[in-house]
């Protein structure tokens, strides 16, 4: 019964999306006010029906309603409540409903916060999002119906994949999808701007908080996924350059470029058509990611729902959305090009260099990800591009990027003398490089050129960012009172840039100095690694809510004093009997100690794997700062004041489309 209600609600949501995607577009074109206003009603309707549908699916999971096929194949009566609720997105069909619900949620937010925006612009933005929603919801209903009934009703479900029964499932996918789907907002705003022929400073300022929020969610999702992969064995560690990981990383790189390009468009009217292209690309790449993950065209350790038939539908969707938007771009963008002029040494110049580097990095990841597919399609054989390629290409690109991240905020808009800037920064740079060369020697006793360079760049970025903050305060009479005068957007940038410095430091240390040992131990034996002494005290059976496990007890001591006990487990889930290894981790400020239980070797002896990763926690701390910075910047008052400005700008739906609107007062000379 609950299944039928859910399905019916999903169908109604699709109808609402159809209305949302068509009526306001026609209304905006013909200047019919009432049709334009329909957008907001349809958005609310779509959201309500999707919410009902989503709650129905969740309810079916909670109450073990195995008459719903999706529930029967992704749940079990012994599955804990936490995983029954998150199991909704543990498979293909349910995660699509979550996708749809989030898209409707973002649309609702756009509708609510667009009061001060030209009505036509808001209506077109919502209509574009409605069209995307039509694609996703019809895909869900017609090829991947989560409410498919199952008869006869089985006595029990086939259980959720044991790999997914992890707190990572609760956090990672919703955050990632919020990011993926959130990129639909800047995409839709860009499309509306293209249709309207209006890509001015107000347009950029309206797009910025949405791009920032989506970017921050996407970053959080990626970081959580990385953390999950880090402690799950067999996924290749915290970053493996696996297609599925790349699929989430590519839109993130594009969105990062978009944020920086939007800044130049808003302040100086520069890079307009480029900004639009990035907005389209970022969302296109998140759709491409969906395709790669779900169609099974590439092999991945994380692919859980692959099916070539569905792949065809997503490819069609991709062709319509991406092909359509790039066609519109080719048609309309030439008219909205910007003519802002600037010197190479200027804020614009550094933002341009940042965009070039990010785009090259993005292209490198895209090529590496799709290369096996290209060769295969051309019949040139099957290969897999592994981490060596990505490390070799990506690392060197990051060095200038991190350097520019520190330099950019120090530069003035439009023009700056190269001698002046070099006079101001050279001592900071030299000091950072020297400390970078010495620090690894002091901390770990050795170093390499790339390691010293990496640490040096991280220090440079941190020092340059803090110096910039100081220079903004120093000229005030009361520097501390000045702290409150700086806009939130500035603090957001500062936080994210400091986060990047922490992240780069952590990645450099982990990559250079991590150690991993495979050992076999009999009860009572000890092993030394990274300054710790580990004593193996045997293995005992334990039972979880839906699994049996072997749990090892490892007493960890340092300098003769016991510091902790680690209990890695080897689990066998009752329904899907695949064995799972659950590592035990001790996290400290300067290192992680991780132990995984291997296999019994007879006579009470077991094989174990011990990892010692210096500064691993800095990866999570740095990522956290980056994400936090995004949310802080998105909350800037200026973006809310925009409403007033835009209202003064007036709304004239009858404005002839196609003509480029002159840049507003703060735009550059055109």
């Amino acid at each position: 019964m609950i299944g039928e209600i859910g399905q019916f609600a999903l169908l109604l949501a699709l109808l609402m999306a159809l209305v949302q995607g068509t009526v306001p577009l026609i209304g905006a074109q013909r200047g019919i006010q009432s049709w334009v206003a329909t957008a907001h009603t349809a958005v609310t309707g779509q959201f309500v029906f999707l919410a009902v549908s989503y709650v129905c699916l969740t309810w079916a999971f909670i109450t073990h309603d195995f008459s719903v096929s999706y529930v029967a194949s992704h749940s079990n009566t012994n599955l804990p409540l936490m995983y029954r609720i998150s199991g909704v997105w543990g498979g293909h069909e349910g995660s699509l409903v979550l996708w749809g619900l989030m898209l409707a949620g973002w649309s609702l937010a756009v509708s609510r916060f667009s009061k001060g925006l030209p009505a036509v612009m808001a209506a077109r933005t919502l209509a574009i999002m409605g069209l995307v929603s039509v694609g996703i919801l019809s895909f869900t209903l017609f090829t991947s119906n989560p409410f498919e009934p199952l008869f006869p009703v089985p006595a029990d479900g086939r259980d959720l994949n044991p790999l997914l029964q992890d707190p990572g499932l609760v956090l990672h996918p919703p955050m990632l999808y919020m990011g993926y789907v959130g990129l639909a907002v800047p995409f839709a705003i860009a499309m509306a701007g293209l249709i309207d022929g209006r890509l001015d400073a107000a347009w950029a300022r309206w797009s910025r908080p949405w791009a920032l929020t989506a970017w921050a969610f996407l970053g959080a999702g990626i970081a959580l996924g990385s953390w999950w992969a880090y402690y799950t064995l067999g996924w290749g560690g915290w970053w493996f350059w696996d297609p599925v990981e790349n699929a989430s990383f590519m839109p993130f790189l594009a969105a990062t470029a978009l944020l920086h390009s939007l800044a130049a468009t808003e302040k100086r009217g520069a890079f307009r058509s480029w900004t639009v292209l990035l907005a389209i690309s970022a969302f296109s790449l998140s759709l491409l990611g969906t395709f790669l993950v779900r169609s099974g065209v590439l092999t991945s350790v994380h692919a859980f729902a692959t099916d070539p038939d569905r792949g065809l539908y997503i490819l069609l969707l991709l062709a319509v959305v991406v092909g359509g938007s790039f066609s519109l771009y080719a048609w309309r963008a030439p008219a909205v090009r910007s003519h802002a002029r600037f010197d190479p040494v200027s804020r614009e110049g550094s933002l341009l260099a940042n965009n070039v580097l990010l785009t090259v990095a993005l292209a490198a990841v895209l090529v590496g990800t799709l290369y096996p597919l290209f060769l295969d399609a051309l019949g040139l054989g099957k290969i897999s591009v592994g981490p060596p390629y990505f490390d070799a290409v990506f690392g060197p690109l990051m060095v200038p990027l991190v350097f520019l991240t520190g330099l950019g905020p120090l530069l003035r808009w439009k023009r700056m003398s190269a001698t002046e800037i070099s006079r101001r920064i050279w001592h900071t740079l030299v000091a950072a490089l020297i400390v970078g060369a010495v620090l690894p020697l002091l901390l770990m006793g050795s170093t390499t050129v790339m390691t010293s360079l990496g640490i040096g760049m991280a220090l440079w970025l941190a020092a340059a960012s803090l110096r910039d903050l100081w220079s903004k305060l120093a000229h005030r009479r009361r520097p501390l009172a000045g702290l409150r005068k700086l806009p939130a957007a500035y603090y957001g940038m500062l936080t994210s840039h400091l986060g990047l410095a922490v992240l780069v430091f952590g990645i450099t240390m982990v990559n250079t100095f991590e150690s991993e040992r495979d050992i076999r131990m009999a009860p009572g034996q000890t092993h030394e690694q990274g300054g710790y002494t580990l004593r193996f005290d045997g293995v005992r059976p334990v039972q979880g809510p839906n699994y049996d496990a072997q749990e090892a007890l490892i007493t960890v001591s340092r300098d003769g004093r016991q510091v902790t006990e680690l209990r890695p487990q080897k689990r066998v889930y009752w329904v899907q009997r695949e064995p799972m290894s659950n590592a035990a981790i001790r996290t400290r400020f300067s290192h992680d100690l991780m132990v995984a239980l291997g296999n019994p070797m007879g006579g009470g002896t077991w094989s174990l794997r011990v990892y010692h990763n210096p500064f691993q926690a800095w990866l999570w701390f740095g990522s956290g700062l980056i994400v936090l910075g995004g949310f802080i910047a998105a909350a800037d008052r200026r973006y809310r004041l925009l409403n007033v400005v835009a209202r003064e700008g007036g709304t004239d739906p009858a404005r002839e489309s196609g003509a480029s609107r002159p840049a507003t007062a703060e735009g550059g000379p055109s």
Partner: protein
Amino acid sequence: MNRSRLVFLLPLLMFLIIGAFLAVGLGLNPRLLPSPLIGKPVPEFDLPTLEQPARRVGHQDLHGQVALVNIWASWCVSCRQEHPLLVELSERHGVTIFGINYKDARDEGLAYLRRGGNPYQWNAHDLDGRAGIEWGVYGTPETYVVDRQGRIRYKHVGPLTRERAEQEILPLIAELEEET
């Protein structure tokens, strides 16, 4: 003007090219990865058989005849899917098939063979998956063709299809039988 307009078409063109490759890619199977072991002798192993724990089998038992080596497990759903085909290959075509039972409990493995039939000459019982690592197993099931000298000549990842068995594996076996 004309040339500058063309620049704006570039993204669309790039997408069309990528899209065409994606469309072709849908029809391909990325699981057919080449094995670095092709042409090499089978990795060394020494394991008890599933049927009799006291009897041990190893790589030297694969010498002397052309055979299929199939890696399977009772918990593996796609193994169940290809199992009837293996039984048929063994009974109708007289193919010699050896099994490596991967990370499985003994009684469950034996129950699986009782239910689905036993096409295997013997099954090495790789309880801890150590031999699987030597063979470079991506996931069960995997099927290898091994020649008289005990060298791996062919590898298939994933469930075997009738098409592949008839068009590639049976002809290859016939060809290898000719070799001395």
